[in-house]
């Protein structure tokens, strides 16, 4: 069995025992990539020589010593490109600094390994909005890996990475994790520093682990969580030992099933897999409680006002002046801005910038943006009320398994509506995780993974991981 198929926890044991070297792991990944990444397309860039050099120098006494971690290509690594899957940054930008999580990975002994594909600026649910590359689902190459962290999910699922970091603004870690059959954890808002993550929607974005096991998710979260003076929204709250309670089980816990998440529009097979996971947790001693999150139906509209509004502001920095795309022979400064942005951005990014600019514009601000922020409060309260009754909440991640590449290409609203189950936790700042819950057989006979989503209160990652461990198949 190739070392590329192993988990962080298994590899750490072998490394510490001296049975393998960190370079062996890099070599195993290099072989996997060479055999498979041509058809999967998970990586935008790898530097195997650099990875071997890092591995050879890795301090194995550190928590992630010698473990290669792939990074979504919207996280800055000093001296590397950070394309965000965009033509705008494909040329003319080399990161002049490390993201906070990048520095923490280095400090924990990890090997920074490869940059994974994503929807342009993390805007999408299929990785089809990458301007640079197509990424395919390793379980069925005709299908999407999900998105926006589709490259990270596909890499981990196909053993092209041991583990990876993704970012999640409205489901971008959990949904590709679900579609690719891996574990994906979105930390609570403020648990992980966003410094050096290229900003999409600042009140929603979080960086999180994408791994082969719940145990690995706990290990990787441990390495990246904690305060950072460079992100004022990153909370100065102590980081507990996330592995400590992992095996304590769910006996005596109350787990909520929100009726709004199991109604119309969900694939019957997906519902059945999620319900089977619920039954397993019940058999393990959890009390299952039906709950209501009455404003669920408004999550899509609320999110697709707030996230584009924040994006339109954040992406104003891409103006052709300081880095990246600059239009040739501009007539004047305004022409430089407008043509650089027209040339550099793809359709989904333009669509969201226009939508966000509109909802923030004079005369529409209160009707759209302020109202959406108020509905966000209602959605947040729904969860607060629910967590008065239950310790965690169980839901599907996505209404259906991974769709075919190219489906619904001209219908962005359809795509947005499929995010319904993952948006609420971002709007409310909760922590959330996707754990594999089995597979559904496609019309062509492929087995498509389905994820169970678990939600826990703000900063309750230990509870989240404990339930996830019990739900892991």
């Amino acid at each position, binding site marked *: 069995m190739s070392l590329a198929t192993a988990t962080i926890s298994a590899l750490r044991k072998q490394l510490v025992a001296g049975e393998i070297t960190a370079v062996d792991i890099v070599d195993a990944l290099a072989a996997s990539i060479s055999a498979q990444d041509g058809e999967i397309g998970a990586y935008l860039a790898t530097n195997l020589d650099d990875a071997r050099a890092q591995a050879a120098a890795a301090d194995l006494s550190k928590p992630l010593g010698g473990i290669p971690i792939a990074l979504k290509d919207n996280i800055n690594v000093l001296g590397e490109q950070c394309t965000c899957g965009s033509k705008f940054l494909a040329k003319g930008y080399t990161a002049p*600094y490390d993201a906070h999580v990048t520095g923490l990975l280095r400090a924990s002994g990890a090997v920074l390994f490869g940059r994974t594909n994503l929807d342009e600026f993390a805007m999408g649910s299929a990785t089809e909005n990458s301007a640079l590359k197509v990424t395919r689902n390793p379980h069925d190459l005709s299908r999407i890996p999900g998105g926006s962290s589709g490259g990270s999910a596909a890499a981990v699922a196909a053993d092209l990475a041991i583990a990876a970091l993704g970012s999640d603004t409205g489901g971008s870690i959990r949904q590709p994790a679900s579609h690719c059959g891996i574990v994906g954890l979105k930390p609570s808002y*403020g648990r992980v520093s966003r410094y050096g993550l290229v900003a999409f929607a600042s*009140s929603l974005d979080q960086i999180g682990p994408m791994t082969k096991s719940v145990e690995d998710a706990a290990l990787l979260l441990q390495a990246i969580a904690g305060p950072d003076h460079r992100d004022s929204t990153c909370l100065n709250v102590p980081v507990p030992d996330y592995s400590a309670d992992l095996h304590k089980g769910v006996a005596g816990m109350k787990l909520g099933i929100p009726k709004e998440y199991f109604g119309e529009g969900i694939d019957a097979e997906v519902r059945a897999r999620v319900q089977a996971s619920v039954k397993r947790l019940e058999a393990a001693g959890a009390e299952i409680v039906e709950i209501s999150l009455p404003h669920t139906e408004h999550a899509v509209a609320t999110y697709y006002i707030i996230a584009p509004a924040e994006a339109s502001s954040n992406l104003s920095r891409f103006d052709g002046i*300081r*880095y990246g795309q600059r239009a040739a022979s501009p007539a004047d400064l305004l022409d430089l801005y407008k043509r650089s*942005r027209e040339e550099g951005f793809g*359709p989904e990014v333009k669509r969201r910038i226009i939508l966000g600019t*509109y909802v923030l514009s004079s005369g529409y601000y209160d009707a759209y943006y302020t109202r959406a*922020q108020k509905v966000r409060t209602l959605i947040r309260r729904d969860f607060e009320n629910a967590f008065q009754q239950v310790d965690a909440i169980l839901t599907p991640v996505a209404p259906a398994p991974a769709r075919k590449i190219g489906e619904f290409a001209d*219908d962005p609203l359809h795509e947005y509506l499929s995010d319904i189950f993952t948006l609420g936790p971002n709007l409310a700042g909760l922590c959330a995780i996707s754990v594999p819950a089995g597979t559904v057989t496609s019309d062509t006979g492929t087995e498509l993974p389905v994820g169970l989503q678990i939600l826990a209160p703000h900063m309750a990652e230990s509870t989240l991981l404990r339930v996830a461990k019990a739900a892991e198949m």
Partner: protein
Amino acid sequence: MATEHIDVHHVAGLARLELTEAECAVFQRQLEAILGHAESLAALDVTGIEPTSYPAPVYDVMREDEPRASIPPEAVLANAPDQAQGQIRVPKVIADA
């Protein structure tokens, strides 16, 4: 919230995007559909509800007023599409006298 409100061409100008006519037409149709969906929010009673800007309680975060090292100018200039004399060069922004 009424439908058929967004003038994509106008808003693209505000957003500093030089769209083609074909792009405007596609976005016009798609954004009308998205904004149509967003109308469901108008039916909710939000009287007296405080807006949420951030989901976690972060207010007035202060730090000690101490100088810290920042990214060196040459590292920043290395990404500039055009530069001269240690500065990023842009098209002329002052009209001829």
